[in-house]
């Protein structure tokens, strides 16, 4: 076996181990360790991705001395490696972009705890991406949930603690349903490894045995993960959690944590149940309807919001709706669009959160729109970055959001029966997006001289501005050279099956 095949295992264990190591280090050293680990994992994922592209085959890695149905294993394909790389990039940029706020918002003695949580979160995300075992997935989902809760409430104001409680309650309901669905699935198939479950599920479907429990088990797992990734009716915890936590946490939560659960759902759809069997159930219709509702109601809530951070948070609800709409279409094209949207949304949403913090900082810390008037002149870099992010969200060509909307519409045209609904809602949602994002952009570019707030320039915050530029470049890359990425996603999804 090639040495590169060890890399998924190394990256999971490295980030897990670094969490333990950070617990005895002072905050400064923990920060360095955190950065180094993210970069190392990113480099390993890049090498792995190149290797997988050259071989064109996914591989399975034993976690222990025993082969498939007995031991535990992880699996790496193009999509997994690509996702891991992307998660590392976003996480590094979010941590770097929000580092200066951490000092103001989090008690000094708790900084090292923050880095521990980030490391553990990274390891759980990697494990969710690479795992080939359902029960391992459940355990790492729990690590993900708990560390995300820690990231929310590390800034201790009343709102964040309440949001953390609400987040935990919803997440625990989701985990409970996921675990119950998993147990029923185990009872029906006798396996916990994804590939073996898929084989047995195929046999069960052809023989017609245990139809009802099978459907219920699939439904329970799907609903569990939908709740955890804040699909429309389950999003009550989201605005406070994203709106009041420290900015790195908000960026990481919105762009990575929910995406980890969604990626697990994609894995379950392809590798546990089987794409065709999943599409023949009614569950995709439910996902489709809730996705559409999320797209509209999330945007409407965002329009009504008078707080820039909460507005961005509500916009996440709408974007999650897009992803589930893609699942609901039940075609390969819809799936590709959804996966692309995961990337595009992660890149854009973290950019928006990081840029918004620059704007509120030069407006006396207020997040109300009235105080943000003219903020883009006081912090030109953040203003430009926020504009870029908004344009991407609205779906202007050159930015990543355009490509994902294009892919969604292309996918919608191919689906009979769901075409009209998806195209109409896509149109409405785009208009609503434009309303609230352009409103904000116009507001921050409205000239307004009489403020006591001083502006900042590139020299004051070099690191922050560089992070913003990186984010914009990432967005433009996703928007301009989308074809290779879409090809890669297609190849990865083909490897899944």
């Amino acid at each position: 076996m090639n040495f590169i095949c060890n890399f998924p295992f190394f990256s999971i264990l490295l980030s897990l181990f670094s969490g333990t190591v950070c617990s005895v280090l002072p905050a400064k050293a923990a920060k360095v360790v955190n950065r180094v680990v993210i970069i190392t994992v990113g480099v390993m994922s890049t090498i792995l991705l190149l290797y997988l592209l050259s071989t064109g085959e996914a591989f399975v890695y034993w976690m222990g001395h025993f082969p498939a149905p007995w031991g535990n294993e992880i699996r790496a394909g193009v999509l997994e490696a690509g996702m891991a790389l992307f998660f590392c990039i976003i996480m590094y940029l979010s941590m770097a972009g929000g580092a200066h706020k951490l000092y103001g918002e989090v008690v000094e003695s708790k900084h090292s705890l923050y880095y521990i949580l980030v490391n553990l979160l990274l390891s759980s995300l990697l494990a969710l991406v690479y795992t080939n075992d359902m029960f391992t997935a459940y355990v790492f989902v729990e690590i993900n949930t708990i560390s995300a809760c820690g990231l929310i409430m590390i800034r201790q104001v009343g709102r964040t603690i309440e949001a953390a409680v609400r987040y935990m309650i919803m997440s625990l309901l989701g985990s409970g349903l996921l675990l119950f669905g998993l147990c029923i699935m185990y009872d029906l198939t006798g396996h916990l490894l994804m590939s073996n479950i898929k084989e047995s599920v195929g046999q069960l479907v052809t023989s017609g045995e245990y139809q009802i429990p099978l459907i219920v088990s699939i439904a329970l797992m799907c609903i569990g993960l939908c709740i955890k990734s804040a699909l429309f009716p389950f999003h009550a915890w989201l605005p406070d959690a994203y709106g009041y936590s420290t900015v790195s946490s908000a960026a990481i939560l919105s762009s990575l944590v929910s995406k980890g659960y969604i990626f697990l759902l994609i894995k379950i759809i392809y590798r546990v149940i089987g794409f065709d069997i999943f599409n023949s159930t009614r569950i995709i219709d439910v996902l489709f309807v809730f996705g559409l509702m999320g797209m509209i109601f999330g945007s409407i809530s965002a329009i009504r919001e008078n707080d820039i951070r909460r507005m961005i948070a509500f916009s996440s609800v709408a974007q999650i709706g897009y992803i589930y709409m893609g699942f609901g279409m039940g075609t390969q094209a819809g799936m590709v669009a959804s996966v692309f949207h995961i990337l595009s949304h992660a890149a854009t949403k973290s950019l928006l959160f990081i840029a918004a913090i620059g704007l509120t900082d030069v407006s006396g810390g207020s997040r109300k729109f009235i105080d943000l008037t003219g903020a883009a002149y006081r912090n030109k870099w953040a203003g430009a970055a926020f504009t870029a992010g908004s344009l991407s969200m609205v779906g202007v060509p050159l930015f990543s959001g355009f490509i994902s909307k294009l892919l969604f519409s292309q996918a919608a045209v191919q689906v009979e029966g769901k075409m009209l609904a998806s195209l109409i809602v896509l149109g409405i949602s785009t208009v609503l997006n434009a309303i609230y994002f352009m409103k904000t952009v116009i507001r921050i570019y409205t000239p307004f001289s009489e403020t006591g707030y001083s502006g900042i320039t590139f020299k004051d915050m070099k690191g922050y501005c560089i992070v913003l530029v990186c984010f914009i470049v990432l967005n433009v890359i996703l928007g301009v050279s989308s074809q290779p990425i879409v090809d890669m996603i297609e190849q990865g999804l083909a490897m899944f099956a």
Partner: protein
Amino acid sequence: MGPNLLANYGEAVAAILFCIGFTNLLLQTNLIKKIIGLNVMDSAIYLFLAEKGYIAGRVAPIVVNGVTSTEAYINPIPSGLVLTGIVVSVSVTALMLSLTIRLYTRYHTLDLDEISAQLKKEGK
């Protein structure tokens, strides 16, 4: 209804407990009752798993006198899953309890709705 409801009475009890716990966790406003609901829900899943591993007339999977035939022991996998699950639920319970302590010292109430109302009143 299917054919095995009576044979699966243990699982039926587990399902009922699961639903009670789930509803409590979702709909109670008192935080402590929510946590109790969480524990009921998790324990119900462990009961379900324990039932799934059971085979009539066999003993726990600890090798006695070197007998290693499948006829002697029950299925060990569900027991292992329960062990792992228990640790997860202990951790989650500890986290929820500490969140509750924090909220209680700050707002002097355990009612989540009242806490939300107070937060709105503070207007922050």
